C-alpha cells in the first residue's frame, strides 16, 4: 500500500479517535486504520493538484493520461508559468517580465511589491555581470522611482544599491543578495502571483494535509498513547514510547 494511503488513513483515524482517552496497541490501531475509507479519486486529485501547483507539466500530463484525473487548470498555462519561473531562476529577468506581461498584463500592474522585486533582481544581475555603469543608470532610472512611489520599498532599495558601493561584492554585508537563493525567492513570488491571477490557490493541498496530520497527532498525544507516524517520508507507524 502506498505511503500516501497510510498517511491519509492515519489522519482520518486520529480525528475519529480524538474523543477517547486510552492506550491503543498496534494491532488495534491497524485494524481501525483498515476500516477507514478513502476514495481513490480524492487521492488522485491531491496528487494532480501537487504536480500542477509545483509546475511539473510533463508529470501532470502523464498522470492525467494514466489515471484519467482531470487537472483543475489548463496544463498549457502551466507551461507558460514554468517558462517565467525558469527565466527568473536563470537570471533573465527582462525576459521573465515580458512573459508575465504576455500571460496577464494585470499582474505586475497590481503587485507593486512583486514588480519592485523583479526590478531589484534585474539590478542584482547587472552587478553580478560586472556591468556597473549600466547598473548605476538602471538604479537611477528604474529603481529610484519605485522608492519615490512607495515609501515601504526604500529600505530594501538602499540595501540593494549598497551593492554598488563595494569592490568585493561577494563579501559585503548585503552579499546574500547575490546568492542563487535570492533568485529562487523572486521566482517563487512570481509563481505565486501568476497562480493567484489564474484563480488557482497558490499553495498545494498536500503540505496542508501533512501539517494537519502532525498537529492532530500532537493533539491526540495528550489524551492517548498510539502508534505515530514520525517520518513523513516513510509513513512508518512507530510505537508509542
Amino acid at each position, binding site marked *: 500500500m502506498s505511503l500516501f494511503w497510510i498517511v491519509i488513513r492515519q489522519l482520518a483515524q486520529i480525528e475519529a479517535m480524538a474523543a477517547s482517552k486510552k492506550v491503543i496497541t498496534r494491532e488495534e490501531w491497524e485494524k481501525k486504520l483498515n476500516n477507514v475509507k478513502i476514495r481513490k479519486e480524492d487521492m488522485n486529485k491531491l496528487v494532480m493538484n501537487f504536480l500542477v501547483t509545483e509546475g511539473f507539466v510533463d508529470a501532470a500530463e502523464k498522470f492525467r493520461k494514466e489515471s484519467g484525473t482531470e487537472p483543475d487548470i489548463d496544463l498549457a498555462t502551466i507551461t507558460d508559468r514554468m517558462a517565467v519561473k525558469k527565466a527568473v531562476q536563470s537570471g533573465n529577468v527582462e525576459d521573465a*517580465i*515580458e512573459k508575465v*506581461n504576455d500571460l496577464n*498584463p*494585470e499582474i*505586475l*500592474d*497590481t*503587485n*507593486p511589491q512583486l*514588480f519592485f522585486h523583479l526590478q531589484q533582481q534585474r539590478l542584482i544581475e547587472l552587478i553580478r555581470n560586472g556591468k556597473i555603469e549600466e547598473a548605476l543608470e538602471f538604479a537611477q532610472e*528604474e529603481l529610484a*522611482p519605485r522608492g*519615490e*512611489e512607495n515609501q515601504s520599498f526604500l529600505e530594501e532599495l538602499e540595501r540593494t544599491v549598497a551593492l554598488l558601493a563595494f569592490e568585493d561584492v561577494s563579501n559585503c554585508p548585503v552579499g546574500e543578495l547575490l546568492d542563487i537563493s535570492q533568485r529562487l525567492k523572486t521566482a517563487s513570488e512570481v509563481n505565486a502571483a501568476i497562480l*493567484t491571477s489564474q*484563480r488557482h490557490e497558490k499553495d498545494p493541498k498536500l503540505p496542508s494535509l501533512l501539517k494537519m496530520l502532525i498537529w492532530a497527532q500532537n493533539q491526540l498525544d495528550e489524551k492517548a498513547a498510539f502508534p505515530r507516524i514520525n517520518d513523513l517520508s516513510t509513513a512508518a507507524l512507530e510505537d508509542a514510547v
Partner: protein
Amino acid sequence: MPSSHPSSDLILHRLSSSDYEIKLKAIREIKNQIIGNRTKKLSYIKLGAVPSVADALATANSDSDFGSNLIVQSAAVLGSFACGVDQGVRAVLDAGAFPHLIRFLSAADEKVVDAAARSLRMIYQSKLAPKFDFYKEQNMDFLLSLLRSENENLTGLGAGVIIHSCETSDEQNILCQAGSLEKLISGLDGSINQRDASLESLATILKNNPEAVSKFAELQNGRALRSVIELTKDRYSRTRLLACLCLICIKNSSSCHLQDIGIKTKLIYILLELLDDSSQVGEEASFAFSSLVSGKEDLQKLAFEANAIDKFYNHLQNCALHPKRLEGIFLALAELCSKLECCRSKFISLQVLNLLISALTHDEANVRTAACKCLKSVSRSIKNLSAGYFMNERIVIPLVRLLSDLSTSVQVAALGAISNIVVDFTPDKSTFIQCGGIKELVQLTKSMDSSLRLNAVWSLRNMVFLADRMCKEAIFMELTVSSVASLICDSEPSVQEQALGLVCNFVDGCMDCVEFAFAEDGIILDAVGRQLWKFSKMEIGIQGMYVLSNIASGNEFHKEAIMQLLFPQAENGSHSLLSQYLQSNDSRLRTSAAWVIVNLTVPASPGAFDRVVKLRNFGIVSQIKRMISDSCMDVKLRARLAFGQINSFGDS
C-alpha cells in the same frame, strides 16, 4: 517637466509608422516599459503616446491574426495607462478608445475579448469612467450578458460597472428587478477575484435599500446571506473585509436581518483583527468599523467590551502611520465616544489625548479633521468638562489655530470641538480669550460659508452660557451690536436660531446683562421681535420667546419694553403675538410664552398691576387660566405660577 529620453522618442516615432510590424513592436515595447511603472506611464502620457495607441486599436482588423494581436497589445497598453492613474484614464477616454474597447467585447477571438474586458475594468475602477445609464434597456441587456458570461473577465467587468455607476435607489431597484442579484450570488462560489467582485457589487446594490435587502435575504432560502457570513472567515483578508462591508450594508438597511448579538460581536472582532493587516485592507478596516457602530449605542457598547479603544490606541502608537490609517482610527474613535461615557473615560485614561493633540497639527487636512471630530465626541463628557480638563493651553491653542485653517472641513470640525469645550462650567474662559479665540470665532461668523457661520455662532452661544460679566462684555464688544442683529436675521434659519440662543445667554444673569439687548437704540430687540412674527422654524420662536422672558426678568424699564413689543399700539384683540404662541400646538412654544408672563407679572414690581390689566384686556389672562389644565406638565406649572401672581392683584 520630464525631459524625453532619447529611446522613448524613438519608440514614439515607430508608433506612428505605417508599417504594422514596426508599430506592433513599438506598442509591445511601451507595454513592457509601463506596466507596474507609474513614473513611465505619466511620462508617456505627457509625450502624447495614448492617442497613437488608441488609433492603432481603432483601425486594427479583428478578423486577421495580426489584427487580433495588435488589438490585444494596444488594449493592454491602454489598460495599463488607466490602471490606478487618473491622468491615464482621462487620456484614454479623450483619445476615443472607449467605444472600440466595448466593440471588441463581442469579438470572436477570446484573447481579444479578454484584453478589451481587462482594459475596461481598469477604466471603471476610476471615478472618471463614463457613468453607465441603467435606465436604457439595451444597456441593461448588455450588462446582464456580461454577468451571465462564463468568462471571468467579463463578469468582473459587469461587477465593476455596477460598483462604479450604481448610486440611486432607483438604479439599485432596476438592477434587482433585472435579476442581477442572482447572477452576482453565483460569483460567491467562484474564484478569489469573482468572490471579491461579487461582494463589492452586492454591497453597492444593497446599500440603504431595505427592499433590495429583503429580496437578497430571501434568495435561495437565505443561503446567499449565509454564504456572505461564511466569507467573513475566508483566508484572504480582503475577502473578509468585503464580506463585512456587505453585511454592514445589509444590517444598516434592515431592521430584521443580522440584528442578533452574535453577528454583531463577530463583525466587531473581525474588523478589529483586520486592523493588523499591513496592506490597504488594514486602512479600510477602521472606516468599515465606523460605519458599523455609527449612531448605534448597542454596537458601541459591544465594541467597548471588546477592548476596541485599547486596540485603536495600540495602533496609534505605531509612529510611522500612513495618514489614511490615522484618519480612519480617529474617525472610528470619534464614533465610539459619541454617546457612551465609558468610552470617553477609557479614552482619557489611556492618554490617547496626547496623540490626538499632535494629530491636530498633522500635514494632511483629513487627519486634522478626524482628530477634531474625535475631540468633539470626547469633549461631550460632562464630568471632564466640569473638571476643566479640556480648557487648557495644550488643547486650546492648536484648536484655535485651526479656525483659520485653509480647509473648510477642518474649520467646521474644529468649531464642533470648540462648541463643546467652551461649555466649561467654570466662569473663567481666559485661556481661550488670550489665544485670540474670540477674534477667530467672530471672524468666522462673517463667513460666506453657512456651515462655518452656524458653527461659529453656536460656539459663541455655548461660550456665553453662564459666563461672567467681563467675558460677556469682551465677546459683545468683539461681535458688535449690528452684527448680532444681522445674524438674528441671517438667511439661514439654523443660524437665526443659534443667534437668538446667543442673545438669550447674553441677557441671562445680572441686570446689567439685560442691557445688552437694548444697546444702540435696541436694534437687537427689534430684530428679535421681527423674527418672532415670521419664524420659519419652531426652535426660532422658542428661542426668541426665551430672550423676551430673560429680558422681562430685568427692571421696570425692561418689562415695559417687552410689553411694548408684545402689544404695539395699533394691535388689539386676540390676534396678539403672545396669544398666538399660547395657543400653539407645540408645548415648548406654549411653555416659553408662559414664562414671559410669569416674569412680567412678578408682584414685587411697581408696574405689575398695570401690566396685569393690559394682559386681561388682551384676553391673555383667560388663556392662562385655561392653560392650568394643559396636557403638558411644564406648561401647567408655569401657567399656575403666572395665574397665582395675577390673582394676587384682585379678581380675574
